[in-house]
């Protein structure tokens, strides 16, 4: 029996196991929306802006590990997705974005709501397609999901002209993908793995530096076993938080521009840096020439282009983090007898290791993450600490970008992967709230909190209507300082306090905004209000809550490595 392109599209999604689509209708995709009418097997979430749809799909994917799916119309619908796609691309998040397109005969005619979205998104997708013939539709959908979720994951865009949706053909979904030019390497080279293990055994000052790859490949279990077995201290990147337990005694905290003193000193002084699923971003390395200057560098990454892109690597291992860590554990077991004997004989190394652990403890003790409590003013760090305690560390936390993001990363301790969702690479303000909505769809019973600033929450505040419509109990903690806080902090430090356009004096009354949308609005202006507001918010079960915390306006994020400085040149509290 023949089916239309629109029907084939929906059936293909079901074949891929999709249960939720984030979307917004429009002319070019009306055939799909007509086919969706009355369908219950697929839940379509009606957003308020297409950017929100992509961030929701992204949050859904990060929290659940399953690809997120977006459906939007042509032209402005498609161009509105670009920031969301670029956000997912920089952080390697598997999403599939379907855009409507004008009929094939009109492509290139500057037709109404036409945009060359395949051209526009070429640099920010892992791959993209324009479907020109209904006969290619199922193959392309199958490939899109496969490419998005395998190897180094990423966003894939599929652009479907309207006439392809209305044409009809037999529906037959391909069993498997045939892509001869795309074969990601999962298994690490065993010779390289052995070389790495030799280095690690002999290291006197080893450090594990782990990133988002650990979370993406679900390797946090293997990482923990590995770190504990070799007794190696661990530091995470922003993207890696939760990949190693934040409360673990071997955990040094985050490294980089706003990393802990201990983590940055450890990385600067290590003689063996084991980079696992991390890509040596400039916010992590600081001045690249002085990053880990004494270290032999081992780098495990599934993407060969990440290796030796920014720093010279001594032992590169291309492969899936989980698989490589497993093989490294095996290789360790095989060398164990010999290496222990070697280690026992080498008293010098034992002493060196003991000294290293002592040194790290001392760094950790001398400059803990800290802030000065104030009786009158709410400190933002205090809000995060109270959120941590009152949720017992079990919430899924999303963030916007800026000070709110850094305080969340520093003061909420993430013990489990996929519980900290943040735009690390692109740094997208307006990400956190829709991402929280997406995560809440993936886990309706979990507490999901967006930690926001008063600036960034206004970038996608319209999604409050989406959260109200679907009765989602998403919480938003607005750290309200009436400033673009991080911009102001940079202007304070590096531009002689010339606060050029960093001030948001005309912010709305967020309590009233929440109420206008049919959500709950709460406010805390004094430290003693904080617990009450959080408890009241956590008790709300069927609608979103805005918590408006009026914080100390000029609080700064410390420590800070000024851009371009080496990691050990930190500004401390």
């Amino acid at each position: 029996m023949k089916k239309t392109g629109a029907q084939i599209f929906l059936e293909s999604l079901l074949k891929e196991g999709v249960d939720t689509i984030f979307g917004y209708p429009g002319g070019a995709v009306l055939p799909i929306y007509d086919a969706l009418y009355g369908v219950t097997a697929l839940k379509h979430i009606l957003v308020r802006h297409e950017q929100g749809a992509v961030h929701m799909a992204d949050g859904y994917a990060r929290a659940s590990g399953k690809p997120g799916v977006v459906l939007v119309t042509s032209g402005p619908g498609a161009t509105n997705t670009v920031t969301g796609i670029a956000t997912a691309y920089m952080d390697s998040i598997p999403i599939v974005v379907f855009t409507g397109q004008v009929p094939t005969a009109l492509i290139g005619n500057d037709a109404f709501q036409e945009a060359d979205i395949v051209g526009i998104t070429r640099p920010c997708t892992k791959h993209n397609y324009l479907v020109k013939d209904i006969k290619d539709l199922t193959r392309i959908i199958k490939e899109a999901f496969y490419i998005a979720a395998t190897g180094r994951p990423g966003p894939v865009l599929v652009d479907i002209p309207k006439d392809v949706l209305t044409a009809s053909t037999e529906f037959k979904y391909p069993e498997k993908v045939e892509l001869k030019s795309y074969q990601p390497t999962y298994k690490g080279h065993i010779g390289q793995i052995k070389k790495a293990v030799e280095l690690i055994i002999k290291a006197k000052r080893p450090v594990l530096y782990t990133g988002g790859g650990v979370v993406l490949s679900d390797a946090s279990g293997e990482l923990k076993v590995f770190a504990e077995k070799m007794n190696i201290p661990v530091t995470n990147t922003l993207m890696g938080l939760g990949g190693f337990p934040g409360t673990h005694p071997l955990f040094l905290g985050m490294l980089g521009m706003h990393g802990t003193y201990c983590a940055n000193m450890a990385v600067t002084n290590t003689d063996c840096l084991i980079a696992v699923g991390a890509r040596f971003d400039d916010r992590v390395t600081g001045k690249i020439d002085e990053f880990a200057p004494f270290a032999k560098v081992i780098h495990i990454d599934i993407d060969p282009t990440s290796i030796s892109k920014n720093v010279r690597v001594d032992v590169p291992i291309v492969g899936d983090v989980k698989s490589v860590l497993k093989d490294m554990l095996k290789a360790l077991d095989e060398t164990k007898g010999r290496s222990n004997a070697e280690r026992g004989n080498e008293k010098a190394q034992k002493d060196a290791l003991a000294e290293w652990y002592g040194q790290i403890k001392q760094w950790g003790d001398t400059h803990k993450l800290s802030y000065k409590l104030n009786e009158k003013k709410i400190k933002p760090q205090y809000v995060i600490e109270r959120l941590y305690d009152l949720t017992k560390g079990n919430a899924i936390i999303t963030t916007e970008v800026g000070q709110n993001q850094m305080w969340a990363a520093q003061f909420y301790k993430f013990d489990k992967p996929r519980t900290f969702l943040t735009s690390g690479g692109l740094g997208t303000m307006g990400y956190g709230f829709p991402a929280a909505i997406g995560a809440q769809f993936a886990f309706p019973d979990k507490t999901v909190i967006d930690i926001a600033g008063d600036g960034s929450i206004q970038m996608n505040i319209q999604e409050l209507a989406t959260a109200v419509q679907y009765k989602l109990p998403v919480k938003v903690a607005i750290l309200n300082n009436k400033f673009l806080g991080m911009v102001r902090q940079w202007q304070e430090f590096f531009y002689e306090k010339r606060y050029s356009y960093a001030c948001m004096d005309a912010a709305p009354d967020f309590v009233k905004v929440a109420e206008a949308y049919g959500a709950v609005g709460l406010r805390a202006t004094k430290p003693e209000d904080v617990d009450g507001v959080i408890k009241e918010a956590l008790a709300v079960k069927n609608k979103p809550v805005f918590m408006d915390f009026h914080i100390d306006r000029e609080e700064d994020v410390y420590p800070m490595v000024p851009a371009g400085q080496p990691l050990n040149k930190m500004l401390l509290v």
Partner: protein
Amino acid sequence: MRHTISVLVDNEFGVLSKVSSLFSGRGFNIESLCVAETLDPKVSRMTIVTTGDDQIVEQITKQLNKLINVIKVSDLTAEEHIERELAMIKVNANADDRAEILSVIDIFRGKVVDVSPTTYTIEMTGDAEKVNAITELLRPFGIKEIVRTGKIAMARSPKSGK
């Protein structure tokens, strides 16, 4: 240093722009680029000439390999290979100069492919140096137009014949 990179890609629309936007987006440099179908009509070959230090060229080959539509990337610079370029040169040729121009063409084993009362159009094949050399010798006569294909290249077969 200059590198000649040979890339096998899916012969589909949009692939050329994926490759070229990779170069522009990452700040890599393209000196020339040639594309045409191979024996297999589903596959095209691109010959790209680029410059960069070892680290940059390593990134270029890795980034090319990462594109889904790229089947194979080989940097021919490191191995024995043959390079050719085709140029068409339209040069002023008045009665006084014709003999001299023809002798230059003859020395370079070029071919006159079109003649008008005032011009010759010459077809010239060779490596880039040869094309540059004849261009310089013809320049004094007045070159009206020149079209070059950019370099194509192929690895040599092993001498042992295996």
